[in-house]
């Protein structure tokens, strides 16, 4: 009996038609997939009120597929949460809502903009990046819903501080990560015990690389927002990076606006996410490009991470995802 039969057998089942992939998974992706499923199931068993962060980006798209593999034909035993910076690419939000609808799951959206308008967050510049400020809204949301575990799609290959973070990452009641006092993580025996007010961040795809993510997306035939593919866009060059020209990010005086074929490798706050020059128009072409990539993901695309080598660690200590 195939999965499709289960869906029919369920009274309430109206999930997106799941298209099984074309071929069996490669050995190492199968290992990674199974590990992630195991981690998700352990978390659901050992915590009371988990949630999954879904931004519409490629890593969280993979996370949703893994949740399907872990829990279907049941509904996901957790809601999806998006911390909205309001600095979005419209294509990503459109995709986010469509995907949630297809999956027939619950999405909670909390906005950084709300916190700015209510004075909880004070900006130094009206158009500044809101990546840092997500922390406030994220912690407010955790409090509001009393979440004790949050699934995130972070990977250890993204950045140096992440390379040391556990799969189950403990946060104190302020949401802070203490890198020097992490719980040892042995075999697959995860310890998710916490005190009231604390929570754990859970990273099921810790051991995946950017290439693994794209190969998995290709294999599973997953849809991703269109801005991941090559498209013509008005950009300016700034400090060796391509900066998209938008209402929020107008060119500075003296900068020359040019049209270029680009794609995004991450989708975040529009004011600090830079595309790379690319002609890759399909997932297979992105896989190919990633195989020969010359720049790590964050270095190439995040304008705010460049400030200092230690900037990611600083933010993580403060509760950033």
């Amino acid at each position, binding site marked *: 009996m195939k999965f499709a039969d289960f869906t029919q057998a369920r009274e309430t089942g109206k999930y997106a038609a799941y298209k099984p992939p074309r071929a069996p998974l490669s050995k190492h992706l199968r290992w990674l997939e199974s590990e992630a499923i195991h981690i998700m199931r352990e978390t659901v068993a050992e915590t009371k009120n988990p949630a999954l962060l879904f931004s519409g980006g490629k890593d969280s798209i993979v996370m949703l597929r893994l949740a399907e593999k872990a829990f279907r034909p049941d509904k996901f035993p957790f809601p999806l949460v998006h911390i909205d910076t309001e600095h979005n690419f419209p294509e990503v939000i459109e995709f986010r809502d469509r995907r949630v609808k297809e999956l027939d799951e619950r999405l909670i959206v909390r906005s950084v903009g709300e916190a700015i308008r209510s004075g909880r967050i004070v900006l130094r510049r009206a158009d500044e990046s809101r990546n840092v400020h997500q922390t406030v809204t994220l912690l407010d949301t955790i409090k509001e819903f009393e979440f004790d575990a949050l699934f995130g799609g972070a990977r250890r290959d993204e950045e140096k501080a992440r390379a040391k973070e556990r799969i189950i990452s403990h946060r104190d009641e302020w949401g802070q990560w203490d890198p020097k006092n*992490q719980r040892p993580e042995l075999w697959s025996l995860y310890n998710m015990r*916490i005190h009231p007010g604390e929570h754990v961040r859970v990273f099921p795809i810790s051991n995946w690389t950017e290439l693994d993510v794209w190969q998995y997306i290709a294999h599973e035939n997953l849809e991703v927002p269109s801005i991941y593919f090559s498209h013509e866009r008005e950009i300016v060059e700034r400090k060796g990076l391509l900066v998209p020209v938008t209402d929020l990010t107008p060119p500075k005086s003296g900068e020359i606006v040019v049209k270029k074929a680009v794609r995004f490798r991450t989708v975040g706050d529009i004011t600090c996410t830079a595309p790379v020059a690319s002609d890759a128009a399909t997932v*297979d072409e992105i896989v190919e490009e990633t195989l020969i990539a010359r720049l790590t993901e964050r270095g190439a695309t995040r304008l705010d991470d460049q400030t200092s080598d*230690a900037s990611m660690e600083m933010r993580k200590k403060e509760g950033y995802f």
Partner: protein
Amino acid sequence: MNTSIKTIDTLRFTTAGSVDDGKSTLIGRLLYDSKSILEDQVAAIARTTEKRGQAGLDLSLLTDGLTAEREQGITIDVAYRYFATPTRRFIIADTPGHEQYTRNMVTGASTANVAIVLIDAARGIQPQSRRHAALAVLLDLPHVVVAVNKMDLVGYDEAVFTRMKTEFTAIGQELGVRNISFIPVSALAGDMVVARAVDGSANMPWYDGPTLLEFLENVPVEKQAESAFRFPVQLVSRVRFGASKENRGYLGRVESGHITVGAEIVVLPSGETARIAEIITLDGNSESASTLDSVTITLDRQLDISRGDMIADAAQPPRVTDTVRANVCWLGSESLNSGRRYLLKTGTRTVRAQIATVNSRYDVQTLTANPATTLNTNDIGELLIRTVQPIMIDPYSVNHATGGLILIDEVTHATVAAGTVLADV
């Protein structure tokens, strides 16, 4: 394009060395020469090298992750690194070498297939090198490869390498290392890490073994698959499965062995038996499941099964017991307290436990057992542990998945110990 890496497998290895043996440089070299380092990372370490007033490219900076470490110039935690060659994918657990970080080494080694132990050819074998090999024995790593580093400082002299090899082979035998290999390298210059010759000159023509990377690419990954079938139940799904209206699905991962539809299994600790009815994944049912497959299982009979139970091969069941003898590395900052209760987690089962006796504490240089009454942070010793409910275990030497356990402090919730189950009580 993506077909080129269809069949590659994953090798996990850990690295240990005393401070300044060149561990960071070696890993940096391995990543750099295998073209796993990207331009912006190279640019970042070039900037830092220059800021420190040094010349060239300090490859050791590639693996120094946290601010505190960069300040102290040493690695203080486990960092995971990823790289791939056309034949294999590698996960490095990079751990610090100091005695005070034994717990980090144990953590890194718990999931590794191979341990790289570094020796500084100029300084000779240090007490710490012994300890690293001893930990590999305690965690039953199938392979230890000794990288005799800084060969450039001893004029690439074969005699030095041979002497180290003889000395360390004796240590390995004394400790009981399963397989041991030796490779002479210069992490700084690059000899025998990835390339046999650097800038066209072969400095060690007398060595005809594999380079470090060749070794890692070819060493067999030992399979848990040969062990008996073990399936710790993670979750129970009440969704109706199959033709029977009542059937429940048991969600879990095959931790060892192999199972097929129709096979006879035993549910533990209850001891009831049944047959496998279905093996379900989102991609359809299958006739069988192998080690490390995450699946949903249904049985041909209605049994009362919950999380923490284990479905196992009926012909070769694990031990069901409330008394376990184990080698334990104490990870907690407070010493072991026999008067206190701890939580013991093995598989998906967590039960209350108490330390019945501290049988011994090991001298971590020699693995000789000495009498002891407690264990302090980073100590390794043998304990007898009693549990309030029964647990299902195998000796660690037979099955790493069902032979590993952790102890959790009931009050602080810290993970205070990691243990490997010994054969009998």
